[in-house]
């Protein structure tokens, strides 16, 4: 199991590294310079890709939570918690790259642009999910609570999205008003490659993270056996 796992895992890591390199090359060489925003717009490709992975990761946590509650066992909980952890990283990247992009383009680090706002809300949901896991000691109960929270949290995302979007449309923001980037085919290609690269990276990370969880379990089990040995 471990040997085979290593091979697939290694393949995923190497291929995601290659894909990220390709995406970087395309971002800086292949993609054209955006006419209005200039070079700073190139952050867009990683910004969108990390947002996609962030939300997708929470969807995986949601599905794994359902799987766990339906009687799926420990493995589903590992997937749920690993995916949430990775999602937290990527959604944090989304918010940070969003702020970095906003500064030169709109003049401020933070605007209540709907997509940026919902990412920030999601970031807080992920943090709450993590804090919940940390503050429940008993593993079975932790898994159950985390699954419930992951499900409820995911279900409220679309409602948050509508609420935030309508809230902004009622108070139109002059800074972001009428800003719709026109995307050239080369930009679209670069974006697609970035999305694929980040998705691959997500799968590679998820696999390693779940494996780590399993090894941790195995270690805990061995340790408990060892402690019970007569010395």
């Amino acid at each position, binding site marked *: 199991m471990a040997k085979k796992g290593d091979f697939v895992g290694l393949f995923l890591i190497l291929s995601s590294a290659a894909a990220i390199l390709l995406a970087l090359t395309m971002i800086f060489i292949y993609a054209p310079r955006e006419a209005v925003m200039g070079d700073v717009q190139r952050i867009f490709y990683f910004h969108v890709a990390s947002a996609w992975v962030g939300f997708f990761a929470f969807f995986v946590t949601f599905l794994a939570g359902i799987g766990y*509650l339906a009687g799926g066992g420990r493995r589903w909980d590992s997937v749920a918690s690993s995916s949430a952890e990775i999602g937290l990283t990527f959604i944090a990247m989304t918010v940070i790259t969003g702020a970095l992009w906003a500064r030169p383009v709109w003049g401020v680090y933070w605007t209540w642009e709907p997509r940026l706002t919902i990412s920030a*809300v999601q970031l*807080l*949901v992920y*943090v*709450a999910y993590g*804090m*919940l896991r940390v*503050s*429940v*000691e008993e593993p079975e*109960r932790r898994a*159950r*609570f985390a*699954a*419930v*929270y992951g*499900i*409820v*949290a995911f*279900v*409220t995302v679309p*409602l*948050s999205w*509508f*609420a*935030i979007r*309508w*809230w902004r449309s*009622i108070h139109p923001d002059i800074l972001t008003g009428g800003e719709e980037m026109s995307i050239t085919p080369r930009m679209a290609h670069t974006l697609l490659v970035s999305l694929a690269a980040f998705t691959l990276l997500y799968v590679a990370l998820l696999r390693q993270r779940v494996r780590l969880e399993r090894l941790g379990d195995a270690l805990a089990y061995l340790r408990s056996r060892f402690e019970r040995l007569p010395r």
Partner: protein
Amino acid sequence: MNFVRKVWAIVAKDVVAEFHSREVVSAMLVFAVLATLVFSFALDLRGDVARVAAPGILWVTVAFAGTLGLSRSLAREQQSGCIDGLLLAPMDRSVIFFGKAIGNLVFMVVVEVMLLPLCAVLFDVPLLQAGVLIVMGLGTAGYAAIGTLLAGIAVNTRAREVMLPVLLLPLAVPVLIASVRAVSGLLEGGTLADVGSWIGLLVAYDVIVVVVSMLVFGYVLEE
């Protein structure tokens, strides 16, 4: 006993217990009044500024006072051992959810009944109109529903009371935005139809949260 009567039994139990001790509602109420005053001092609320800020302050106060009541309501079940009785009773877990959620809703409404006139006077806004009351009811129902589910989780964690707001507030974002915007719209002279999309959002939130909570509440209570 049918479903409604079982739910009613739990609600009645909570109301009677609260009537005897009066510890939860009184604490929520005093906190709500204090919070309103603190907001007034901190933001120096007078005149037009107060009128614009009123819906937001009202809802922040309701939300924070709500978390006090929610965590007490579930913690009390555990400390008194009443939760074991509820779990042993021959009924579906969703009955417990509805019973507790409606009980919490009642307590929050009691606080709001006192808070609304206070805010209306302090901030000089016509809060006591049918539209505002409808919005308050819909928003509070959704908040109490998801709050009851999450309070069930929070009381079983190490951090307990600290955990509930952390879990609850990010998921209550739609309720808070929709309620504040709807109340603002009504105060600016709009009709219920003008804030229809916000009310629709609140109704959708209530329905979704109640259905999902009903389905998963049993997993929260499992021992």
